[in-house]
């Protein structure tokens, strides 16, 4: 199994190793944050370290290794990069908004109450959100 990596020259192997290590360390730090932070709104921030820079480093290492091994540009990893860049903010924003909605509807004192002028808008946010989301008329 090792013979294909033996063809890799040192000028490509060392950056690939460093990128892999950086990606893994960033992901590990992010999940330690997910484990140790106190409240949900703090925990939302931690894993994005892995899902942006961590996966970016590993995808760069993969592109480097395969491009050098096959001596042509292998760029389909850009697909995963683009997917991650587009989807991570969407999912985490949906999740944080759902958590805020749940906490407010329970009357939790951990979150600030909706501003008084925006009472109707705050409770109407889920409704206006569901139209373009589900692609259906409300």
């Amino acid at each position, binding site marked *: *199994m*090792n013979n*294909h*990596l*033996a063809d*890799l020259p*040192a000028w490509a*192997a*060392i950056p*690939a*190793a460093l990128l*892999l*290590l950086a*990606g*893994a*360390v960033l*992901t*590990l730090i*992010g*999940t*330690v944050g*997910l*484990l140790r932070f106190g409240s*949900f709104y703090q*925990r*939302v921030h931690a*894993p994005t370290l*892995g*899902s942006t820079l*961590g*996966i970016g480093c*590993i*995808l760069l*290492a*993969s592109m480097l*290794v*395969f491009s050098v*091994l096959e001596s042509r540009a292998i760029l*389909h*990893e850009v*697909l*995963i990069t683009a*997917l*991650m860049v587009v*989807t991570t903010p*969407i*999912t*985490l924003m*949906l*999740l944080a*908004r*759902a*958590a805020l*909605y*749940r906490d407010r509807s329970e009357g939790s004192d951990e979150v600030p109450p909706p501003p008084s002028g925006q009472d109707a808008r705050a409770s109407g946010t*889920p409704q206006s959100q*569901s139209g373009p*989301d*589900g692609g*259906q008329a409300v």
Partner: protein
Amino acid sequence: MILTLLMGTIFLTQIMLVVAMAFATFRVLRGPRAQDRVLGLDTLYVTATMLLLTFGIRNGSILYFEAALIIALLGFVSTAALAKFLMRGEVIE
């Protein structure tokens, strides 16, 4: 020499990613509320994508990349659906 370095780094990377997956699994099992579990699941998906990419580099196969792409896609869809479920009580209305 260089090969040993690269293989050792890949091994270390896989160990770290598995530890990260264990932490995320802990958050899924022990999250105080439902949104913590969904967040842990999303982290688990992202880390599994990275682990598959590392396997691909190690074995020199493009097939792992396609599995990683599918996992990334399914992770987005499932997290979005679960967040919608948490907010509205149903996914498709």
